[in-house]
C-alpha cells in the first residue's frame, strides 16, 4: 500500500515534525523541575517519527533520524552510562551525579551529569521504539 498523498498533510507534517522534536527537547530540559523528562520527551519524538512515517513512508522517517535507529539507541545507552563515570572518577559510587554552576553575568547556568543521563534515556528510547514502530509502519 502506498502512503496516501496529500499536499496539505505533507506540508503540515514537515513543519510539525520539527515542532514536535522541539517540544521533546523542551520537555526534556524542564523535566527536572516540572512535569517532563527524558522518557516523555522520547515518546514525543517517537510520535513525531511515526507521524512522519505515516505521511512520507517509514524509510523517509528513518532517514530523518539523526542516526540509524539502533545506532541512536546505542548512543543513548552509551551517554547514560558515561554520565555515571565522572562520579565514579570523583570517588563516589557509579551514577552519582555531579553539579556545576556556570555564572553568566546576571544569571547562572546549572549544569549536571543528570542532564546527560536524561538525554541518554531520550535517545535510547527514541532509537529503540523508532526501530520497532517504523518496521511495523513499513509498507509492504
Amino acid at each position: 500500500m502506498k502512503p496516501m498523498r496529500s499536499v496539505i498533510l505533507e506540508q503540515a507534517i514537515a513543519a510539525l515534525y520539527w515542532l514536535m522534536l522541539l517540544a521533546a527537547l523542551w520537555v526534556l530540559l524542564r523535566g527536572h523541575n516540572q512535569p517532563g523528562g527524558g522518557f516523555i520527551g522520547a515518546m514525543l519524538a517517537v510520535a513525531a517519527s511515526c507521524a512522519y512515517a505515516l505521511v512520507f513512508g517509514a524509510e523517509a522517517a528513518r532517514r530523518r533520524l539523526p542516526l540509524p535507529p539502533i545506532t541512536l539507541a546505542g548512543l543513548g545507552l552509551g551517554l547514560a552510562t558515561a554520565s555515571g563515570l565522572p562520579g565514579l572518577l570523583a570517588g563516589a559510587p557509579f551514577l552519582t551525579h555531579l553539579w556545576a554552576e556556570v555564572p553568566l553575568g546576571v544569571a547562572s547556568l546549572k549544569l549536571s551529569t543528570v542532564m546527560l543521563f536524561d538525554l541518554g534515556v531520550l535517545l535510547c528510547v527514541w532509537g529503540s521504539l523508532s526501530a520497532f514502530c517504523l518496521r511495523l509502519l513499513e509498507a509492504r
Partner: protein
Amino acid sequence: MIHSDNAAPTPQWIGLTWLLPLGLFVLLVLSGQPTLGFSLEWVPSLGVSLAFHMDGLSRLFLALILGIGAMVFLYAPGYLHGDARLPRLMVLLICFMFAMIGAVTADDLVTLFLFWEATSVLSFMLVGFDNEREDSRDAARQAMLVTGGGGLALLGGLLLILHAAPGLRLSDLPRLDPALIADPVFSAGVMLVMLGAITKSAQVPFHGWLPGAMAAPTPVSAYLHSATMVKLGVYLLARFDEAMGATPWWEWSLVTLGSITALWAAVLILRERDLKRILAWSTVSGLGTLTLLIGLPNEWSALAFNSFVLAHACYKAPLFFVAGNLDHLAGTRSIDNLRGMGRALPVTAAAAVLAGLSMAGLPSSFGFIAKDVILTAKELADSLWLVGATSLLVSAIGVAVAAVATIRVFFGRPNDALCRDAHKEGLRLVAPPLVIALAAVALGLFPQLVETMLLDAARMMSPDIVFSNADVPALREAADLSTLGSMGLIVALGALAYLGWDRLHQGLARLTFLDPYGPASIYPRALAALKRGAGSVTRALQDGVIGHYLMITLAATCLLMLPLLARLEPAPSLRLDALEAGRIVGAVVVLTGALLAVLASDILARLLAAGVVGIGSALVFLFSGAPDLAFTQLAVETVFVVVAAVALRRHAALDPAPAPGPWRITIAVGFGLMLGVLLLALQAAPMDSSLGDFFLAASLPEAHGSNVVNVIIVDFRSLDTLGEITVVLLTALAAWPLTRALRHKGAIRR
C-alpha cells in the same frame, strides 16, 4: 577406528602435557603428609565460599588422578597420532583433571557440587568425543542424563544438609553432632546425596550408562571410567561414612546395593564378547564392591576400601590401555578373534600379565594385599552369608576376567591373520600400561610405600582406627591361613569360570527373557516415554495461538493467587472518601472503553476502545496528582494505538473475531475480580510513606530538582533506569530480525 582422514601436524605442546600431572604427582609425593586447607570468600551472603581441604582421603584420590593422569596424557597422543582432534581431546582431559582435583579437595558443599557437575559435563563431551558417530552421541547423552539427574539429586541433598546444618563443611563430617544425625531433614539430605553418588558410580539400577560410555576413546575410558570419575561417587559416600556409619539404614542400603551391583555386573560380564565392555562391567562390579565395603561397619573395611580403590585403578587402567592397544594395533576387541597376540604385541602382553596378576589377586601383586584386607574386613563384619557368597562369586569372576584379558588373548595358538597385520607397538602405547602395572607389582612387594597414605585415608572414615603403622603392620601382616584358604577357593573357582567361559556365555546369552529388564532396554523406553510426555504437554500448552497463551497465563495467575486471596489482611474495603469528580470522570471513561472493547466485533474498533481505556487512566492519574504519569500514559497510548492500527491494517487479516466462549469469559471475569479485590485490599492497608517522605524531602536539597518523579528516575534510582533502557534497547534488538519478516508478503498468516 578413531583415525580421521584430516591428518594435521600435532602441536608440540601436546606431546609434553603428561609432564603437568607428573609434576603435580611428584609435588604431592614430596609434600609429605600435611593436612592443607584454604578458603576464599565467594558468596558470603549465602554462606558459600571456595573452600578446599586436603586430607588423607583426598591425597589418595589425588595420587590416582595425577598418577594415572600422567600416564593417560602420555598415552593419548600415541593413540590419536596424527588426528586433527587430538588438541581438543587433550584440552578436555586437562580440564577434566582439574575438575577432579577440585572435586576431591573441595570442602565447601556448593564448591563440591560445582566441580562434581563439571566432571559430568566433561564426561559428556569426552564420551561423545567421536561426535560423528551416532552410538557415541547416544552414549554421551545417556551418561549425561543419568549422572546429570544424579547431580540434581545431589544438589537437593546438599541444600537440605546445609539447611539442617548451615555452614557445614565436608571436613566437619567426622565430628558431627549426634542430634544432627538424628534430624530427619539431614537424613533426607544424605539419602539424596547417596542417590547422586550411586548414579555417578554406576550402581544398580543406574549401571547402564557406564558400558555405554565405552564409546569414548581408550584414554578417556582408562581415565574417567575406570580410575577416577566413577570413583567420585564412592569417594563422597566414604566422606559421609564416619558420620552415618552408626545409622542402620546407611549400612544396610550400602551393603545391599553394593552386593547386588557387584553380583549383577559379574553376571553381565559373561554376556559380553567385547574386551572393553567386559572390562567396563568388571569396573561396575568393582564399584559395587567398594560401595559394599563402605557399608561394612568395622575399621578394617575403611582400610580395605582405600586399598581396593588403589589396587583397582592400578590394574584396571593398564587393562584398558591393553584393550585400546589391541583395538588400535590389531583392529579388534572381540575375544572371539584375539588369540596368541603375545607374539605380535609382546610388551602389551607383559603389561597385561602384570596387571592381570593384580586383578586376580595373586601373591606378589598389590591386588593380593587388597584382597586380603577385604577378606579380613568381611570376616570381621560377620554379616550375612549372602555377602560372603556374593563376594566369593564376584572375586572368582574377577579372576576369570583377568585370565581372559591375559591368557586367552595373548597366549595359545596365534590368530595368524591378526598377528601378521598388527602394527608395531609404539613407546607411547606400551609405556603407560607397563609403568602402572609395574607399580602395582612394586606396591605388592613393598606395601610399606603406600601404607601411611592408605592408613591416613582410612582414618578419615574411621578416626579411631585401632592399628597404626607403628605397632600393627596392617598391610604386611597379609595372608594368614584363613584368608589364604578363601583366596585359593576364589582362584580355583575363577579358573573353572575361565575354562567354562564360552559355555557360560552361551548359557547366559540364551536367557533372552531377561533383556526387557536390562538397562539397554529400560533406558530407551524411558527416554521415548519422556519425549512423548514432553511432546503432549508442549502441544497442549503451546499451540501457537496467542489468545491461548494469554488464557493459560491469566488462568494460572488466578490459580496461584487463590491461596493469597483466601487470607488477605486486612480485608478489602471500598474507600468512598477517595472518590472525587476528576477521578470519577476518568473511571467512567475507562469503563466505557472497556465495555466497548468487549462488545465491538471489529478489531480496529477494539483497538480504539483499548486506547480509550488508556486515556481514561491518564485522566485518573492527572487528578490523582501524578501529571508526569498522565503525560507519559497519554503519549504511550497515542503512539501505540496509531502504530498498532496501521500495522494491523497493513500486515494482518482483519477477520471479525469470533464471540468469546464460556472459558474466555470465565477467565477474564475471574482475573478482573482477582485484580480488583487485590487492589481494594492494597488500599485498605495503611500506607508506609517513609520512602516517599524521604524522596520529597531530599529531592531539592540533595538532587537539585523539584520534580520528584524525574529526580527519582534520573538520580536516586538511576541505576534502575539504566537497566530499564538497556532492556528497551535489547527488546528492539530482538524485535529487529523478527520484524524483518514483515517485509515479505504474506509473512503473517496466523
